[in-house]
């Protein structure tokens, strides 16, 4: 066997390993969808059936009408949209201040913000909760939405700052010569040039809010105000052994996140790669 042949066989071997790995990765998701389309009888059949027959679309109708999932869906959309907008505006403003304006105290503040990424959320959880409670905001969406408008998270600021720093400064000077201020530079030069980075931030913020569990869990008390993640947990408590309905509900919660991922795939991979670059 020549070296070339050996290399070819080795490459094929690793390719098959990757292929099997990716199938294992997809299997839980396939099993989720399979189970969501079966009736009780099919689910309990041993050995298990791989393809549902007949396909029970009715599970989705049942699962979605038992609890007001359409309401949860709207609640989640509302919170998520509001937070994505807040994060995009305030994190880009802050990143601009950290990257394109020279001022005293900039580095100190930036270091503080970055080190807050390593702070366990549990430390600030309880006083923040007590604070909101004292303000009478317990049970409202305020605790879930207001923080997004205060910089939108250290990671997003960091990511945008890195991106802004790569844009040539000549453009800023040209605007200043024309009599424009910093807000104009921010809105008319930096933001339009940073579309890919802003999309990354928007996508991650969407997913984080869509998937958030702890904050809604501690701040929301009325079932009508629940988010999807919380509704799903409630559903689990009520229909513990009805796997077909639980899988149908899970699929519904998963689908929007999945759609966002498929649409923004390229940006996700690029964005997550940026995370590890400068550590």
């Amino acid at each position, binding site marked *: 066997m020549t070296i070339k042949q050996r290399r070819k066989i080795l490459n094929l071997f690793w390719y098959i390993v990757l292929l099997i790995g990716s199938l294992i990765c997809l299997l*839980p998701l396939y099993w989720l969808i399979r189970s969501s389309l079966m009736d009780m009888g099919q689910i309990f059949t041993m050995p298990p059936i791989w393809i549902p027959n007949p396909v029970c679309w009715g599970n989705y109708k049942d699962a979605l009408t038992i609890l007001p999932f359409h309401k949860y869906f709207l609640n989640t959309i509302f919170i998520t949209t509001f937070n994505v907008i807040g994060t995009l505006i305030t994190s880009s403003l802050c990143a601009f201040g950290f990257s394109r304006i020279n001022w005293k105290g900039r580095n100190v503040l930036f270091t503080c913000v970055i080190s807050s990424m*390593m702070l366990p959320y549990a430390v600030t959880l309880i006083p923040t909760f007590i604070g909101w409670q004292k303000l009478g905001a317990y049970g409202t969406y305020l605790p879930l939405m207001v923080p997004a408008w205060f*910089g939108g998270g250290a990671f997003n600021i960091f990511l945008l700052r890195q991106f802004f720093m790569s844009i040539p400064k000549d453009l800023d000077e040209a605007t200043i010569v024309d009599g424009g201020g910093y807000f104009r530079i921010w809105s008319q030069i930096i933001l339009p040039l940073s579309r890919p980075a802003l999309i990354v931030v928007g996508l991650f913020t969407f997913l984080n809010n869509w998937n958030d569990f702890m904050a809604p869990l501690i701040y929301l008390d009325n079932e009508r105000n629940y988010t999807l993640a919380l509704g799903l947990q409630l559903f689990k408590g009520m229909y513990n052994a009805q796997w077909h309905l639980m899988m149908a509900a899970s699929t519904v919660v998963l689908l929007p996140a999945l759609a966002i991922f498929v649409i923004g795939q390229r940006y996700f991979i690029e964005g997550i790669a940026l995370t590890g670059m400068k550590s």
Partner: protein
Amino acid sequence: MATAVTTKKDYKIHRYQIEKRQQIWGVIFTLPVSLGFMIFTLGPMLASFVFSLTNYRVAAAHNSFVGLENYIRLFSGKDPLFYKSLRVTFTYALMSVPLNLTFAFGLAMLMNRDFKGKAIFRSIYYLPTIVPVVATSLIWTWLLDPDLGLINTILRQLNLPTSKFIYQESTVLPSLALMNLWTCGGTMVIFLAGLQDVPRVMYEAAEIDGSNWFHKLIYITLPMMSSTIFFNLVMGIINGLQTFTQSFIMTQGGPNNGSLFFVYYLYREAFELQEMGKACAIAWVLFIIIFALTMLVFRTSRSWVYYEGER
């Protein structure tokens, strides 16, 4: 001559004005995060420490200062759950973090070649990380079901011993670590980006010198990747020690508190038992543990992390 002096003076004034303007606008632009940092990070952090020195309860009429009593009671072992949850959390982190990093790194190595469908593979491996944790937990509760779950069914058909997985104290943490492995694609993508930055020339030079794959891994890949490995290690530890949602949904901390993670313990004390003071003390213990571990990793990193172009 006179005009030259004036222009110089004018220039100085002009510069001063620019600097002043920059100072003002710099503060204004970063105002959201500086306020946010004070309101949502620094303030609560200090408040949390103060609360941890009191017996604060939400419903109580008055709360009093108790000094270090909360801490003393925690460490004295009067509440056996404190040490138990510490043990659970560390056992889990020690299993799941190395497992995750190794798998992610191995996958990234395999992916770091030219082959057809690379982008599709990458997306597939990344996919599980975008599934909401609540949904992930439900899917895996179903897969790990002792009687009807897919995994035990496969084991049974292969005539292998089955397991009770999350319903038995000795297997609950390994089961959760296994489930966590499903989401190693996020770490893998970071590793992959790092691998792509390793200069090819290095491998070519090593090949000319007659190195095999193992030499290349030990002498080129690992040293060149050390800062990425370091980053993932720190983040892995920080996240692993704060696991909460999975056990809240799948096991409610059981069986026999076998998956009572530290944050879950804190959650119970704070939001089910209303022991806010004690919960803050628990939070500070976690904070100090994470801080100490991070510092330890940072300290030792000087000897094993290689930063390009440094020193």
